[in-house]
């Protein structure tokens, strides 16, 4: 009976899979060919390509799109990251007061394992050479978002990855000297609040036909594109903090130096 059910289940699964593949391929066949204009969205594309540089002041039209025309999307994405970080803190964060009795031995074993991991000589040497370049590259991508490919999300992700390598190579204690839970909370909050207020101001003035006091700048220079550069920095900070926060919470269940935990050792 059980075997027959399993066979039936597998058969149905294969049929469902093939059906889904067929439906998706059929949908793909109806899409316009690669590089050709899509007749339904042609108005928006024309507007973006022809007036984008003038209206947003960004040479990289993708940055102009995601941080000017569709800045609300990006605001939502940053808040999704923030919410995800809060969820991970709730799920994986260690509350020492509540869990100490059951997991005492586990804590000690895990705490020792970071120190062992930090003694990797090859990783340390590679980190020593690579980390300055990685941070510089991340900052470059972040600040050049309106001029060249990249922007807030990519630059922030690279900086977050660099922080992760830093923590893996030199131990969490080194990162904890500058990057604590307070810093993470402060940076994330200030970035998100700045983004919300700046974009709210632009949308309010734009919708009511008021004059916008944000200078556009000369296209092609670093200080150009109006609000795109500060918004890029805000998004990048949120992304970098979230990435490092994820790693730290996954690895040891807390961001930054845990005083109560350390005192017990």
């Amino acid at each position, binding site marked *: 009976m059980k075997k027959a059910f399993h066979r039936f289940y597998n058969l149905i699964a294969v049929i469902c899979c093939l059906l889904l593949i067929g439906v998706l391929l059929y949908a793909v066949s109806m899409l316009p060919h*690669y590089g050709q204009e899509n007749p339904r969205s042609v108005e928006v594309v024309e507007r973006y390509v022809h007036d984008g540089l003038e209206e947003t002041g960004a040479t*990289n039209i*993708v940055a102009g799109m995601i941080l000017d025309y569709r800045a609300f999307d990006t605001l939502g994405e940053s808040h999704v990251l923030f919410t995800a970080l809060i969820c991970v803190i709730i799920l994986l964060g260690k509350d020492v007061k509540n869990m100490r009795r059951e997991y005492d031995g586990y804590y000690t074993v895990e705490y020792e394992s970071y120190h062992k991991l930090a003694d990797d000589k090859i990783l340390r040497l590679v980190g020593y050479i690579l980390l300055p370049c990685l941070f510089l590259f991340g900052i470059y*991508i972040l600040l050049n978002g309106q001029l060249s*490919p*990249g*922007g807030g*999300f*990519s630059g922030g*992700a*690279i900086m*977050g*990855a660099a922080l*992760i390598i830093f923590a893996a190579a030199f131990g969490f204690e080194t990162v904890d000297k500058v990057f604590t839970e307070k810093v993470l909370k402060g940076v994330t909050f200030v970035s998100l609040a700045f983004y919300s207020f700046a974009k709210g101001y632009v949308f309010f003035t734009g919708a009511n036909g008021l004059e916008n006091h944000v200078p556009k700048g000369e296209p092609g220079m670093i200080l150009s594109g109006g609000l795109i550069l500060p918004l890029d920095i805000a998004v990048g900070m949120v992304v970098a903090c979230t*990435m490092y926060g*994820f*790693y730290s919470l*996954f*690895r040891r269940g807390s961001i930054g130096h845990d005083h109560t935990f350390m005192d017990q050792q």
Partner: protein
Amino acid sequence: MGTTEIFRIVLLVLLIACAVAVNLTKNLMQAVIIFMSYSSIMCILWILMQSPDLAITEAAVGAGISGTLFLMTLKKIEAEDAGEKKRKKKRAGKRS
């Protein structure tokens, strides 16, 4: 057919191979590594499709951070693959 076209076809075949291999492998660690290589191939494909913005993000997030988080999770739940479990059972059986 130019060199770029051949390169693109090779990459697409590799992409499909990676996608199938993730499902077929029993070892979770190997699955994570194949997933990361899938992201790297996808990153080159984004460049070929002239969207460097996405390529940078894919390289940093897909191939870097999400893979690291998967590995962290595997370590946290002390994952074992199917073969290892069988071997352990056999060893336990021999002892008793």
